[in-house]
């Protein structure tokens, strides 16, 4: 019983994550004994259709980065399956559904042609010792697709496509602004013509004005290159216009997934409602309705009992403290894990 198996368009599914878990061991002392685990990602299931954008939203530390890095297998998942419709590892020319978790190293390396990543921080992912052209060429070099005669042109085209100038080619990352560096990272991500791009908060380190530009660019690129995005963000306003569907995460778990429309207008989870209340609204009448959550985000190494959200939830009842709610499909393609989802009338925007 996964979200994908319920939908009619199973063929269209590019990526399906089932029960993904990533626990980081906490080691103490000289002998580095494991004294506990940070449950950074705890039983996450998602799917993504081709050409679609899935927003992955949650507060800082809820495991968004960890989840996306597990998908591209930068981190070894502790448990779970990640099914990806791969063209590189095709069978008789037909795309093959492969479980990324069980692939060997060589196969994983091949799938990296199809899955690229854009990083949260615009500076550090670019090697300061490499020129822009070397940085963008690197994925091609790694996959043996670099050809001195043609690739230069490809790189120049990419550079122009992301809004940089050809004469930026010989420059070094420190000579660019944050927004420009993020564009370099985007050009690099596109160098191998991927189909899935994991965008880990690509705009949250940027100025608000640059954010809009970069989001527009990503949307244009999605259309032109037929990309699918998993778009990570820590607040719902960023992904509002770019996402087809949105998943809300809280302390390693997905608490609600739905199409953007459904999620923004009729949220079913109190946490989503709280996040939505902080999205700036056009109508000043609603300004005062902001819900201030009490307390801090739960500690993923020592989560609360029952529903992880109960210490901060305004609708919590006794049951919430004792029993963890099940993740269920309450309305078609609208999944939520809350005991009181049916009865609550939550406000969206």
């Amino acid at each position, binding site marked *: 019983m996964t979200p994908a198996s319920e939908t009619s368009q199973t063929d269209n599914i590019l990526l399906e994550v089932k029960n993904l878990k990533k626990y980081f061991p906490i080691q103490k002392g000289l002998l580095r004994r494991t004294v506990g685990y940070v449950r950074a990602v705890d039983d996450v299931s998602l799917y993504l259709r081709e050409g679609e954008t899935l927003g992955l939203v949650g507060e800082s530390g809820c495991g968004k980065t960890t989840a996306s890095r597990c998908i591209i297998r930068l981190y070894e998942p502790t448990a779970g399956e990640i099914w990806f419709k791969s063209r590189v590892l095709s069978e008789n020319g037909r795309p093959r559904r492969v479980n990324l978790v069980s692939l060997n190293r060589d196969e994983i390396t091949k799938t990296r042609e199809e899955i690229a*990543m854009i990083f949260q921080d615009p500076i550090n992912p670019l090697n300061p010792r490499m020129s822009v052209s070397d940085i963008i060429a690197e994925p091609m070099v790694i996959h043996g697709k670099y050809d001195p005669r043609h690739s230069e042109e490809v790189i120049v085209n990419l550079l122009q496509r992301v809004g940089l100038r050809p004469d930026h080619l010989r420059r070094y990352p420190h000579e660019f602004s944050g927004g420009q560096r993020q564009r370099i990272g985007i050009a690099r991500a596109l160098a191998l013509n991927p189909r899935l791009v994991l965008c880990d908060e690509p705009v949250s380190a940027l100025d608000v004005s640059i954010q809009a530009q970069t989001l527009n660019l990503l949307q244009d690129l999605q259309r032109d290159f037929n990309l699918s995005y998993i778009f990570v963000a820590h607040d719902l306003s960023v992904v509002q216009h770019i996402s087809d569907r949105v998943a809300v995460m809280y302390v390693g778990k997905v608490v609600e997934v739905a199409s953007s429309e459904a999620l923004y207008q009729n949220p079913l989870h109190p946490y989503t409602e709280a996040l939505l209340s902080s999205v700036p609204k056009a109508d000043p009448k609603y300004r005062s309705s902001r819900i201030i959550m009490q307390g801090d985000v739960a500690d993923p190494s020592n989560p609360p009992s029952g529903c992880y959200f109960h210490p901060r939830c305004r609708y919590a009842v006794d049951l919430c403290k004792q029993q963890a709610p099940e993740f269920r499909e309450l309305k078609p393609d609208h999944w939520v894990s809350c005991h009181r989802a049916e009865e609550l009338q939550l406000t969206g925007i």
Partner: protein
Amino acid sequence: MAVASAPSALPLGKKKEFSQSYWSLVWYRFKKNKLGVLGGIFLIALYFLFVAVPEFVSPYALENRSNFVEAPPTPIRFVDQNGQFQAPFVYGLDRKIDQVKRLRTWVEDPQRKYPVKLFVQGDPYLLFGFIPANLHLFGIDADQREARLFIMGSDALGRDFFTRIMYGGRLSLMVGLIGQFLTLILGATLGVISGYYGGATDMFVQRFTEFLAAFPNIPLFMALSAAIPPFWSPISVYFMLTLILAFLGWGGLARQVRGLVLSLREREYALAARSFGAKDSRIMFRHLLPGTMSHVIVIATLSIPGMILAETALSWLGLGLRPPLTSWGTLLQDAATVRAIRFTPWLLWTVPPILFTVMTYNLLGDGLRDALDPYSGR
């Protein structure tokens, strides 16, 4: 929507500046450090004179013996007995036995004068090892066999000591360079592997470097050099010595590289490379190691003198190079007795070039260290 596709709308750096790679910034900063540049120039000159062309600079061949045993430095004169100013010349030398001290001494014979010239023909040699030549920078004409020019005196076999210092410099300076190069390769490779993989690999490399560091060097060196078979050719002994020095020296460098790699490993560009499918070797040697290179070069530069001094000290102790190999260390052996210092103090001329070398390396190393981080001032 159109914003992104209109490049002209982008903020493009306020000042028009040409692109600078990391190394060109380092170079820019280094150039501003006068002492460092001076050290670099001196070093280049030193290596050129002592390593590339000592045959040309020195007036004689290395093993050119003469009867003038333990002659003091020959004074080069410009004024003859009659008070007349002349082109530089030296007087002939006569042996005289000091009956009181029971000592052989050399006295000048004013009757015989030999002009000192630049670019004289003399002992034949192979320039750079393959060009036959016989030109020497200075000296007295080779046909005047009965006279010699010893600007730094002669040794117990009547060989020109200046010539020996020039030739000795070749081996000593090369020990530093080759030894440090091997150290660098060994230390950097093991350091980056240790830092990148961590875990058991790291543990093993770290304990091994600690073992090397904790082990007293002289006994270890004695054991290792005793293991060099005595029938080996001098050149094999020389390379073995270099290897041993490198083997003892890589630990410190490896630890430094490891530390830097540990901090760089968390930098996202290594992760980014991995996300595009880069192999471990590419991440280590294309991304992590270059990030440590500026440090490594400084450390290496500053530890070359240590390696040169180690060769000198060990050869002086008789544990390193042995005659007929001529290095500054074996030359210092000539000056190792009280008798030598009392009666042939010019044999201490080996010391100034050693000091000078050490000093220039330190100047260069300090200059490089200051230039190391060109972003710091931005």
